């Protein structure tokens, strides 16, 4: 494992749906033991850290984000011993593991809430946010507009309303109660003691409520995160807190604090912008969002992704862009989910491998740590007829065998049916076949991750967009002055700054570009996938041609024998 304290700055994350990854006990549902048995695959692929969706006891009315016991593993997934074994085996392979933790709310089945709702005087009476009417905090928006009418729901047992920012079966915890605040830190300690390498903190902006505000991003919430971070830094150095705050980058950046809150935050808006740039065949959707992305503290990092278990997040784009994304990708109304679109990457790009490769090349070379979604490495499809967000949560397709090699259970017992259509079905798309085929998407992905690992500049370097006349070409230079290079065995020991030039053609048509590279005059670009040297950079603009949807990554090096 990369021993550096800031390992997450150059890591590649892989989001795993335990339920859908591999069924170790043949009951039709993926489990922790199943995931453990597939760690060799993940090590082969070259990911650094797994992100597990919630694995706690839950009635599963919201994919496990409705936790009913923070101390217990969901029995379908296994038990504590399975979790310990998974973590140990992953660490042996140099892979870290972080897990989702929902701080903001619990399931209404949680014993805390069951007790709290009994009356107004019990020991947990003040653990949730209760009020006599539903008018308090009326400036807070409703997030799940499709299903919820209010952030308050009446509980007839207690005769009061309780506060919930998400579903009505997910009451918000009351962080103004010191017992709640302390207990949730105990929860974190418990799982860090077991060996988790950090948490993805779900829905962090909403921990506290104050009248007269929109109840998001309150100072008290930041104060609490600082307290949590302090705890982690003193007792568990090297563990990471990744904040989910689906907001504009200039607002999200506050969750880094002064590198004393979360070390990582998701960068949400860059993702739909990547899709839009390819669609529009011009770079501005991307460059304007990166231009308005503020600097972050040196020890921190963005988390960036193309797809995840949720819908293509459109909360962050303007109305006009949202309409456009809908018109473009959601010709079928079933694909509309809240303010987003539930599709996997491959169907989103009409299964065009060139586009899928281009988008990954952008993802791997943008400022931030890339987060892959399970199955996207083999270009899995989705099943939009499964309802809610299950369409992108079908079983991982391991082989052309029964149940996609995911489970030995009866087909009818599977938590969801695997894909079986002629294009994306497991007969056509699976790990086994792609591992045997050196030109498969899976092998391409593995190679990209290898190349990325050799260049810490992708994680930590500066980012400079070049000015080009051709709007369809996006070119940028990543620079790291003092790279901490991976140890080399034999070969040439490199010194000096790590400089990588990325050139991408966002158009379906071939394109030329004249790159203003005078700043790097005298250096030789070496293409990173094949190590082919290109002509030396001279005083004039550097001319390059690009096939449709193609990209190049060049390392800029001094020529042998000096410039």
């Amino acid at each position, binding site marked *: 494992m990369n021993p550096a304290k800031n390992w997450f700055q150059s890591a590649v994350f892989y989001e795993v749906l335990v339920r859908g990854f591999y069924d170790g006990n043949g009951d039709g549902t993926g489990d922790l033991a199943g995931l453990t048995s597939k760690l060799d695959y993940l090590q082969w692929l070259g990911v650094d850290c797994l992100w597990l969706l919630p694995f706690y006891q839950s009635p599963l009315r919201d994919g496990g984000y409705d936790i009913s016991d923070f101390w217990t593993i969901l029995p379908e997934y296994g038990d504590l011993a399975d979790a310990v074994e998974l973590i140990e085996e992953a660490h042996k392979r140099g892979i870290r593991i972080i897990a989702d933790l929902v701080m903001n709310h619990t399931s209404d089945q949680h014993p805390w809430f069951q007790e709290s709702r009994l009356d107004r005087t019990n020991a947990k009476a003040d653990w949730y946010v209760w009020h006599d009417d539903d008018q308090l905090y009326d400036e807070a928006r409703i997030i799940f507009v499709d299903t919820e009418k209010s952030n308050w729901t009446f509980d007839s047992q207690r005769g009061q309303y309780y506060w919930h920012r998400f579903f009505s079966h997910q009451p918000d915890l009351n962080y103004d109660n010191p017992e709640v605040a302390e207990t949730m830190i105990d929860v974190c300690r418990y799982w860090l003691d077991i060996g988790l390498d950090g948490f993805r903190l779900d829905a962090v902006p909403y921990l506290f409520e104050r009248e007269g505000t929109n109840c998001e991003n309150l100072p008290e919430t930041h104060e609490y995160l600082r307290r949590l971070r302090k705890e982690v830094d003193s007792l568990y150095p090297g563990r990471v807190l990744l904040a989910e705050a689906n907001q504009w980058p200039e607002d999200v950046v506050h969750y880094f604090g002064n590198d004393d809150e979360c070390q990582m935050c998701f960068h949400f808006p860059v993702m739909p912008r990547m899709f839009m740039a390819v669609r529009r065949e*011009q*770079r501005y959707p991307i460059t*304007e969002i*990166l231009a308005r992305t503020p600097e972050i503290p040196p020890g921190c990092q963005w988390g960036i992704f193309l797809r995840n278990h949720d819908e293509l997040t459109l909360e962050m784009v303007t109305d006009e862009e949202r309409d456009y994304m809908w018109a*473009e990708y959601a010709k079928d109304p079933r694909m509309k989910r809240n303010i987003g679109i539930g599709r996997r990457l491959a169907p989103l790009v009409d299964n065009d491998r060139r586009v899928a490769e281009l988008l990954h090349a952008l993802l791997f070379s943008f400022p931030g740590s890339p987060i892959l979604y399970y199955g996207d490495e083999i270009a899995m499809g989705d099943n939009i007829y499964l309802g809610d967000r299950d369409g992108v949560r079908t079983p991982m397709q391991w082989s052309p065998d029964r149940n996609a090699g995911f489970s030995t259970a009866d087909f009818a017992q599977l938590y969801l049916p695997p894909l079986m259509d002629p294009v994306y079905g497991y007969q056509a798309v699976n790990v086994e076949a792609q591992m045997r085929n050196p030109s498969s998407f899976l092998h391409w992905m593995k190679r990209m991750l290898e190349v990325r690992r050799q260049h810490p500049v992708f994680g930590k370097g500066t980012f400079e967009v070049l000015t080009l006349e051709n709007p369809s070409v996006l070119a940028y230079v990543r620079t790291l002055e003092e790279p901490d290079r991976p140890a080399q065995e034999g070969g040439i020991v490199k010194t000096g700054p790590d400089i990588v030039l990325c050139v991408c053609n966002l158009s*379906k048509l071939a394109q030329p570009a004249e790159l*203003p590279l005078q700043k790097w005059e005298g250096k030789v670009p070496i293409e990173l996938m094949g190590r082919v040297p290109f002509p030396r950079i001279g005083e004039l603009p550097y001319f390059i041609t690009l096939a449709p949807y193609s990209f190049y990554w060049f390392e800029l090096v001094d020529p042998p024998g000096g410039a």
Partner: protein
Amino acid sequence: MLSEWPPELTAALPDHLAGQRWYAGAEAPAPESVRVASSRRLWSGGDRHELWQALVLAGEDCYQLILGVRPAGEPAEFLHGHDTALVGVTDGVYVYDATWDSELAKVLLEVITGGEEKPERARPMTAEQSNTSLVYDERVILKVFRRLQPGRNPDVEVTTALAAAGFTHVAAPVVEWRDEQYDLAFGQQFLAGGTEGWALALTSLRDLYSNSDRSVPAEAGGDFGAEAGRLGLVTAEMHAAMHQVFGAAGADRARAGWEALLDGLPSRLERAAERTGRDLLHAAGPMLERMRAVTDPGPAFRVHGDYHLGQVMRTDMGWYVLDFEGEPARPVEQRLAPASPIKDVTGMLRSFHYASRYALVERAVAEWSHMIPTARAWESHNRQAFLDGYLGHPGIAHLLPDPAVSPAVMVAYELDKALYELEYELSFRPEWVAIPLDALERLVEGKDQTSD
């Protein structure tokens, strides 16, 4: 190296001038003789190189040369492929256009900013016609004026005034370089990452034209509509700012300008008809009548004057407006004359037509006929989007003619622009004549600009 201007070099100047893109009309013959009105050394690098400025009179025109001097010998790498940059060799030195020499180009900025700017790199912009622009560190762009006009250069004047008035869609001024008579150069913030609107429009059109299955511009991947809408809004903001800064001309002056425009149309149409063999004047009769009936053409004030997709730049901060110099082929007093903002609006609308046809001409002739409806659809879609954006600005209505006469004013300015284009193309690019001619025929027949 040079103590004064070597007279023997003066003889080489006519040919040198004729070889420059910024010389009066690219195809114009070399001037018979020139006179060096002034010359001075701007900077000396000892025995290695020097930077000079020379103002050269050729007939009525005054041209600015920025020259480098280096010891004779092998010319430097930067002159490879730019033979016309060399003025001549004399007395152990060679003299050349210094804007190609990145070292001296850096010195130039340093000299004219009095040492405030010390750039690390300089590069010339390659696409330019009438001036020479240098980019420094991808941060500052210096426009060196070539054909000098006495008095304030309109671009410098307008840009600095708009920037001072808080209009944020012009590149911020960095330095003005002038002498008693002329504006010599103008440095501005370089719009890093920017692309000309023209290139962006062509990207959209190429995407549309290469689609095999779809010809609805609003549904095409490369749709330009949202960009056109934002551009319309910025245009309205520009007009509001120009109105605020320069004020409106009196109603008499506005009417006089309008009447001058109308008075010129019949003879220009006649001339166009003669040169193209189309009966434009006869068909235009009813339309000219309608224009004549307009007594109040609305407010007139200083406008951009040569507004088209090549004068706007898309950046990460939205659209920027460039080059407030007016149409280069018109005399200065016409360029600065107050006009209705409709003049700029129609300029941009004409540009959408040009782009849609330009991208068509790139393709095989066999495709043209069945693609013309697609071209029209793109033009129509983006015209509408631009106008929606423009008219959506809350302060624009009182700067425009009364809605009842607006269509006639618009057609008049569009006709004016199309005639200007036709005259220009007949003189310089006969192969493009079909584009303004297409517009003229639609205009005089009173057809909507985007119907077939």
